[in-house]
């Protein structure tokens, strides 16, 4: 499959001026200030194929937005390079951004005092979208995002969810083959969140759009992403599918077993690791690859009659938190 986005040893350094506290410090830094270099993005490489949805995640300040900004031509890399469709977004900004749709969840791209439709009208003029494409795209957008309902409302009167729908629509009006979404679901209620996810899925399926998505909502990742790239302290620490990540970091799963009768003393069964026992309920932890769930149930049932069972998978949140925390220790 064709490669859509490629980063090679991409690095972005920021010079940070250290300021001492207080008035004295302020004067001191006027004359002489200590400078240090922050590697916001440090030597990262990846390549993303056409039509992939990639979740780009990491804790706050990990370098996500800096990467997005380099990919969209806003920032110049300190070293290394990134290309979109073979072109450098920094050197050929106008050419590259013509094929790019970008949404910053925290900041709207729409005109505050105008009706939503007028922002679209201006974008149509800027990108020179022909009538057919424009109306076709608007119809598709209307189906998914219900744009018609808000198209005549001034942007400042839109709720956060409505505004996000407007922003998403504005970002793909010119049918870009590549879309960057920087926290598109931030602050949205479940309903709109669902709508946004559906939109991302639909666009990807219909147009085979390549999508990079940063988010702190792991539900987005779970529902949408074929692949996740985790960045921390400017470095990529994992780049794989969600399934691989879960298998590697959370191979264990929990089985909760309710017995008919509270056992008189603590339960012990060969090859079954019981981590907790409370009344008639047992918690069992086991590696899902090594041990079959049925085998465990069988071993327990041989000694104690079972009333009910439930299986709890590890939560993505826990896994991701574990990964972030590991990053902190290493640094």
């Amino acid at each position: 499959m064709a490669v859509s986005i490629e980063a090679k040893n991409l690095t972005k350094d920021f010079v940070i001026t250290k300021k001492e506290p207080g008035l004295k410090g302020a004067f001191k830094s006027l004359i002489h200030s200590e400078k240090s270099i922050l590697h916001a993005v440090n030597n990262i490489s990846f390549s993303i194929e056409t039509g992939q949805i990639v979740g780009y995640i990491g804790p706050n300040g990990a370098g996500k937005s800096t990467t997005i900004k380099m990919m969209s031509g806003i920032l110049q890399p300190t070293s290394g390079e990134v290309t979109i469709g073979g072109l450098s977004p920094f050197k050929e900004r106008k050419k590259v951004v013509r094929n790019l749709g970008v949404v910053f969840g925290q900041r709207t791209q729409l005109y505050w005092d105008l009706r939503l439709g007028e922002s679209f009208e201006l974008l149509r003029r800027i990108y020179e979208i022909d009538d057919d494409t424009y109306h076709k795209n608007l119809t598709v957008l209307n189906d998914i995002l219900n744009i018609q309902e808000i198209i005549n409302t001034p942007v400042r009167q839109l709720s956060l969810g409505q505004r996000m729908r407007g922003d998403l629509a504005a970002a793909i009006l010119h049918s870009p083959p590549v879309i960057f979404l920087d926290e598109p679901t931030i602050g949205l209620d479940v309903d709109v969140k669902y709508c946004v996810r559906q939109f991302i899925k639909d666009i990807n399926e219909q147009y085979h759009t390549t999508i990079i998505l940063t988010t702190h909502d792991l539900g987005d990742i779970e529902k949408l992403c074929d692949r996740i790239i985790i960045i921390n302290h400017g470095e990529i620490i994992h780049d794989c599918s969600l399934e691989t990540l879960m298998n590697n970091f959370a191979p264990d799963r929990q089985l909760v077993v309710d017995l008919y009768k509270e056992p008189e003393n603590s339960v012990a069964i060969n090859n079954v690791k019981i981590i907790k026992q409370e009344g008639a309920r047992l918690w069992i932890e086991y590696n899902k690859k090594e041990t079959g769930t049925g085998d465990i149930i069988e071993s327990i049932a041989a000694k104690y009659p079972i009333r009910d069972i439930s299986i709890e998978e590890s939560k993505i949140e826990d896994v991701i938190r574990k990964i972030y925390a590991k990053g902190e220790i290493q640094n």
Partner: protein
Amino acid sequence: MKKLLHNIRHHISIILLTFKMTIQSQMEYPSFLVGWLLANPFQFGFGILGIFIIVSNFGAIGDWGFQEIAFLYGISAVSHGLTIVLFIQTWYIESSVRYGELDRYMLRPLGVFFQMIPSYINLIGFTDMLPGLIILIYGCIKIGFDASFFNILKLIITIAGAVLIRGGVYLFSGSISFYTKSSSSLIELDSRLFDSASMYPVSIYPSWIQILFTYLFPIAFISFYSAREFLGKTDGLPMFGNAYLITFLVGLLVFFLAFLFFKRGLSKYESSGS
């Protein structure tokens, strides 16, 4: 060639649509517009009234009578108004840089300068221009301005030059925010200097200030030299050649240098980030 024409048409169509949308969005707050319509004529009215009081008490400023100063003041005020109409965005480079609006411009397949400055025509600026125009017409009538085609053309070229000087200085000051992230106090200073160097004849100042305002910081060209030529006066520094042409050339030069400074600042922003 065909591509160039297409490009020009494309940009003009964006300017026109943006202008239409600007009018619409400013109509969203009609009281705001009315406020300016009241405030600006007052400001200029009191400005010219102040000069009138000075002149009627002391006879003249330099050897300029009230009607001559009204003519000079009119050129200055009209060029101020037009600058506000065309280049007000230069005042907001600072906030664009600070609050990341610049990022939005960079995500569009158009030049950043184009999106930032000329694509926005400020309707409110016309409320600045109107009182200036009235004062200028008053001045023209009172000094017996010969309204021949050539003279009117000369006046228009003068005002165009003045607008370029003002716009260029603002653009230069605004572009400083690419380096320091702050420039609003400088814009304020520019406005005050413009007032003091273009609303009164520069010849009232000591010659070192005249030299400063002519060669180093050429804001005396905004109104003084052309007005002097129209009035056939000879006070102040000598000038060779036609003042209206020199004013226009100085305007082009100032604006061009400011534009280069903007470009340089922008590339610095791109490489450092917010």
